[in-house]
């Protein structure tokens, strides 16, 4: 073994709180109780990723999870992702309407440019739209040129705001990956909340060079992609895990104040004919509980504040 410099045993951030200045250390159980509208206990945030995975993926600095894995042209993965935006999403919309869900759509700006029909449909419904980056291969990453990233954020947000007519306030980075500058660039471009950090179950204040924004708790652990395609559990197991989570959070909310059940789902995963029934089963189960409040991400944040 080669020698390590003695500096390896120096710990410059070893003091109270976090080892960075982005947010304060705080245990959820010690915070004031939160109340949701009409005395509800559990906010249901259904977040739908409407993603564009380009066929000519660059893979810089890594291949985005869910993206192309084969040599060009990877028709297999390209078309199977496209399936979600052509077919699966219309199954989702029916299910949402059946159960009274208020879905938040996280849209790749490039998808909005390419499928105006779908975007018009969502605009007509009046659901909340947030930005999911320019497209899934336009990653934000440590070491990225700051000017390049600034242009990317601006292009993604300006384009989506123009096409949707909504003053888009929320953001999810592709692959929830960031550079050290991403939160600052988001704040500079009018974003008030983002959903990349999974360190809490409730919203919290995140500091940027352009003032504080809010980190919203969008669980990766409960995601359809994560459970079904990363962990390789069945759709039935996904449904069972979500129902268990719902039960637990509802119980916790009874003594500790309002909680959020965030379901990040994708029409190319759960919109498949053999899986859609599990989504319907989950929505039926959750919405049968009268303490549940289906809401847009922005509404949850407004009620939290």
């Amino acid at each position, binding site marked *: 073994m080669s020698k390590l410099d003695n500096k390896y045993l120096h710990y410059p951030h070893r003091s109270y709180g976090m080892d960075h200045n982005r947010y304060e250390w705080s245990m959820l159980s010690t915070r004031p109780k939160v109340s949701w509208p009409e005395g509800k206990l559990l906010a249901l945030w259904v977040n739908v990723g409407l993603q564009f995975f380009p066929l000519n993926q660059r893979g810089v600095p890594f291949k985005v999870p869910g993206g192309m894995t084969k040599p060009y042209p990877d028709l297999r993965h390209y078309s199977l992702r496209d399936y979600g935006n052509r077919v699966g999403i219309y199954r989702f919309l029916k299910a949402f309407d059946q159960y009274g869900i208020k879905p938040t759509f996280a849209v790749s700006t490039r998808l909005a440019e390419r499928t105006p029909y779908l975007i018009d449909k969502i605009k007509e419904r009046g659901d909340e739209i947030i930005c999911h980056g320019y497209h899934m291969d336009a990653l934000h990453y440590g070491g990225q040129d700051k000017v390049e990233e600034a242009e990317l954020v601006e292009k993604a947000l300006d384009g989506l705001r123009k096409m949707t007519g909504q003053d888009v306030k929320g953001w999810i980075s592709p692959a929830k990956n960031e550079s050290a500058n991403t939160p600052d660039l988001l704040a500079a471009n009018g974003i008030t909340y983002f959903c*990349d950090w999974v360190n809490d179950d409730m919203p919290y204040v995140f500091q940027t060079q352009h003032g504080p924004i809010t980190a919203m708790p969008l669980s990766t652990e409960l995601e359809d992609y994560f459970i079904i395609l990363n962990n390789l559990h069945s759709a039935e197991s996904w449904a069972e895990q979500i129902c268990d989570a719902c039960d637990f959070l509802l119980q916790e909310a009874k003594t500790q104040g309002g909680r959020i059940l965030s379901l990040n789902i994708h029409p190319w995963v759960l919109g498949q004919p053999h899986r859609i029934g599990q989504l319907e089963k989950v929505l039926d189960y959750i919405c049968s509980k009268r303490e549940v409040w289906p809401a847009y991400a922005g509404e949850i944040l407004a009620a939290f504040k």
Partner: protein
Amino acid sequence: MKEDPGYYDYWPYENRPKIEWPNGAQLAFWVAPNIEYYELDPPANPYRTPWPQPHPAVSGYSIRDWGNRVGHIRQMELLDKYGIRGSISLSAALCDHHPEIIDMCEERNWEFFSHGVYNTRYTYGMNEQQERDMIKDAMESILKHTGQKCAGYLAPALSHSELTLDLFAEVGTEMFGAEGGFYSCDLFHDDQPTPIHLRSGKRFVSIPYSLEMNDTIAYLVQKVPPRQYGKALKDNFDRLYAEGAESGTIMCIPTHNYQVSCAHRIKAYEEALEYITGHSKVWVTTGREIASYYLEHYYDAALADISAKQI
């Protein structure tokens, strides 16, 4: 490099001197929550990269932070409910970063053992003095913040050198005599304690800390569904409990607040805890108490038996 670490001799799991735990228990049960601090921007180590992405590794860092912010209290309430005192595998720097967690564990008389300073500072590449300093730093932190004489060690992120167990035992002796630095969780070769050969000749044991039952191995590496993990815990218990009537066994559940406390997983964990603690001949205890009891009552008989069985 050596072919074999040389810590223990071959000792078949049959016809060993029988262990009987306090009050006639046939199985000693302990839960070891790993309470860890991972740094957002740790220094580079030539042998292991801390995070898969360049700084900032948001996904890996933030879910581990979730364990401290949200998950800790959930597991703690569960262990309270079933009368279990945790044996904490502690990143010692957590005493500085999150003293509230340390205080809560102290109030419950939980055990703190060493898991290094940070889980993003690896033993790899350290010379003997550096590793000794790191081990001592962690044990001094535990003493300063909790008053406990640290008895056990699980090397940070399971990163070892050839001297790890020797150095831990020696620093323990230097600080506390025979009352500190006397057991290791770093070896996975047995379901009973094993006397360990050290260059100092100190009375020192390996205590089973099962990687197979470790929630992070189950959920992150093997990617099992929560209820399958819950079933594995019960199956593991059933077999060890049955065998314990003849041999005296140990079951450990090593946990992480960012895994087992997730809302979709905690039910499966609770069912297993309820099941295990519902059996009469289970000694619900801590790592330190198991090691101390064994050293006092069975260590010498084990040494004699092992010696007699070397061919």
